[in-house]
């Protein structure tokens, strides 16, 4: 069995809706998000219906992983799953496809991360076979 990073739980897929395509994509280093076929818009986190129309005419599509930091903070106090990760840089990234996603910034000192910086997806390895999307400033 894969070993967990200290204190960081490995998420279980599909506890809410079917998210297998997201996790399969992540394993292969591809960021795959939910897409509303009726309106041509992405939505994240995944939902049971399109938040635009209420229909289930949804599919999963790979996105570029490129985007811009919309908001950012540095978590400085301990909490569940944060062991060994502080100070932790967290950003809301607005992807070029027009959808926002929360992610850690991996390649910069947390204090230098700024709104407006361009980022691209990077992969945080949680175990031998589980990767989670994060971002690097480019």
């Amino acid at each position, binding site marked *: 069995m894969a070993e967990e990073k200290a204190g*960081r*739980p490995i*998420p*279980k*897929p599909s*506890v*809410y809706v079917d*998210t297998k395509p*997201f996790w399969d994509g992540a394993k292969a280093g591809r960021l795959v998000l939910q897409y509303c076929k009726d309106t041509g*818009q992405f*939505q*994240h*986190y*995944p939902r049971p219906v399109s*938040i*635009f129309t209420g229909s289930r005419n949804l599919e999963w599509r790979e996105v570029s992983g490129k985007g811009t930091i*919309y*908001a*950012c*903070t*540095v*978590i*400085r*106090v301990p*909490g*569940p*799953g*944060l062991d060994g*990760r502080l100070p*932790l840089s*967290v*950003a*809301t990234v*607005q992807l070029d496809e*027009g*959808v*926002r*996603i*929360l*992610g*850690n910034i991996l390649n910069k000192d947390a204090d230098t991360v700024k*709104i*407006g910086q361009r980022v691209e997806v990077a992969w945080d390895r*949680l175990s031998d076979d589980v990767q*989670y999307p*994060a971002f690097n400033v480019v």
Partner: protein
Amino acid sequence: MTAKKRDIVIAGYSETAIDFKTGRSAFDLGGEALAKLLAATGISKDAIDGLSVTTPLSECPNPFFAVYMTEALGLTPTWLNYGGTGGCSATGGVARAASAIRDGHCEVVVVLSADAPSTAWRANYGAYRSEFQDPPGVQGPPATFGLLMSRYNHQFGIKSEALGKIAITQREHALHNENAYAKFKTPITMADYEKSRVIADPLRLLDCVMFCDGANAFLVTTEEKARSLGITKMVFPTAYAEVTNFNGNQPLSEITETGFSAIAPKVFKQSGLTAKDIRMFQPYDDFTIAVMMKFEDFGFCKRGQGSDFTLDTDLSYKGTLPLNTGGGQISAGQPGLASGGLNLAEAVRQLFGEGGGRQVPNPKNALVTGIGVIPYARNWGTSAAMILEA
């Protein structure tokens, strides 16, 4: 505009003291709030035929908590509401009670909020969080508010001394509040604020609430019924509006645009009042930035000018816009999801003229707000506002 509704009244309120790790349950705290409400209003328990109960963090695994509460209190309501909008459940409970009374389901309602999360935290939000919110480390409201503050600061700029002033003013008010958490009854200075630990940049410890235990209750009925019960002190909830999941189908909307911008015009229209007419402001204060953003959303100042308005306005109980005159949740302690009732109770207390050492002169009306639930990468889930008039 239709005539302002002045048929329904809040005819009494009660609060327990706020304390940390009391070892007590929401039932016990709720029972204390009910007993105090009966003592304050002088009515018999048998007069109560409606009950609104707030979902508590400490008892939320029980889907029948509200029904259990009727048993605990020996009540037999013909109308029972179980409010799940967190800090909006108290004002929302009063509004729902007003509708139920107007529809004839009941006549004398108790709106009860009790929670003991510092003794027993039993909530598990489940849903998407373990897959999409927890992994990047956004477990709680502070990280989400750090993100929100960073965006606000990027767009408009935050003067930290403005947030510090909110914290300091509310702490001064808490010193006069016999129910406030004892450990908060020490004045704080701007130096204390600026030295306080950063939780999630730029959010500081003194910007934040702390979970405690506590309860509050309100008596809602018609003016006529209240008078027939011998009650003479009452206030009129003349306006209420709420919105949940504001901009919920617009994932790229600015997160600094909140539900309060949508409901503020509604409560002003219902009451016939404007921001200039508001005598005191008792806003839900989980974090200082939420207070500042509400100054803007309710039109006390323009959007983006919250820092300057805060610095330029006397927010003390003697001032031009008294703010959270009981100390708010930040300085009285947050009684879990009974939180919204804390701001509401202070408004009713002030309008009853029972503010003691913190009494607002000429307490003719109050604006109260609620906030419920912190969602994924946005601001907050439910926004609620109520105007009370003497």
